[in-house]
């Protein structure tokens, strides 16, 4: 299975797209959305635990970020800046809509439905449900660190920039999350 990180833009490609997007180039805007959607949605989905809310939060994040490109100074990567906005958008939406769902099974149901082999469908569906339940039980900081590291291969420095914590704290949150998942999924 390929990861979203593999499709991530190089720093040069990203900078060129941001410059074109600032000038109003719709193709550049579309490329920035396409190349970052999996990571942005991954973050909002893991925070909110609800597919529709996650899509709303992802949209909020892109609209906010791309509408304020002039504020992006390039001190971090655009991707990191965008993910930081996505995290805050998800948390803002969570506050507005009430508590997040305790268990998110929609992702598991989608994954199972995609499988043609009935036996594989049942097995993967059950596994996905366990994974989603386990992830949902992690404290949000740990869940976010695990999501950004495992699914999107961000460095601890990048995770810290996204989460608004130090690199060391991001690393500890990741390891704490993995240890907890090992207990929950064994």
């Amino acid at each position, binding site marked *: 299975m390929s*990861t979203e990180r593999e499709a991530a833009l190089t720093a040069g490609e990203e900078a060129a797209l941001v410059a074109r997007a600032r000038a109003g180039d719709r193709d550049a805007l579309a490329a920035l959305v396409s190349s970052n959607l999996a990571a942005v949605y991954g973050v909002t989905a*893991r925070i909110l635990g609800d597919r529709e809310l996650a899509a709303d939060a992802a949209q909020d994040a892109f609209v906010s970020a791309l*509408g304020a490109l002039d504020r992006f100074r390039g001190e971090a990567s655009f991707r990191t800046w965008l993910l*930081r906005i996505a995290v*805050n958008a998800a948390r803002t939406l969570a506050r507005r809509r009430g508590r997040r769902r305790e268990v998110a099974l929609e992702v598991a149901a989608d994954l199972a439905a995609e499988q043609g082999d009935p036996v594989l469908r049942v097995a993967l569906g059950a*596994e996905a449900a366990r994974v989603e339940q386990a992830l949902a039980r992690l404290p949000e900081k740990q869940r976010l660190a695990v999501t950004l590291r495992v699914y999107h291969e961000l460095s601890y420095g990048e995770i810290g920039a996204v989460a608004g*914590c130090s690199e060391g*704290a991001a690393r*500890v949150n990741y390891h704490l999350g993995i240890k907890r998942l090992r207990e929950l999924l064994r």
Partner: protein
Amino acid sequence: MSAMDCETARDLLPLLRGAGLSARDRAGLEAHIAGCEGCRAEAELLAMLRRTPATPPAGLVERILDALPARRPRQRRAVGLLALAATLAGAVLVGKGVVQDLLDADAPGGPAASADLPAELLQPFWPGDDELAAGIAPALHQLSVDELEVLLAELES
């Protein structure tokens, strides 16, 4: 090449399947996993997690692009039509100030662009997490300076 320790291996495990590892670290990590039951189990755990990605719903890219505040041509057309209607009616229904406001909102970096970004979206929400690093996981601080520098170099590469 010195053998990779478990702490470093577990830091690098999430990068094993992507392009973020050097050939040397990949070889070292694979050799470590082959001989370490605990790290092999963690690699299997990460593989299980990756089989359950959060996949964006179909059509979300288009929905986002439609929602982007790039209605500039429409705004310009609206201003033009309003001005024309005002002229034809012989009444000054659209004053210079109103037109100027719309044009300002249309300009890159103008009021519309900044108004779209609530300040709360850019505020940090987890300040002061360093105590985690200091207290909860002391084993992470037992790495030598050299090991930390190697790890940081790889993480930042």
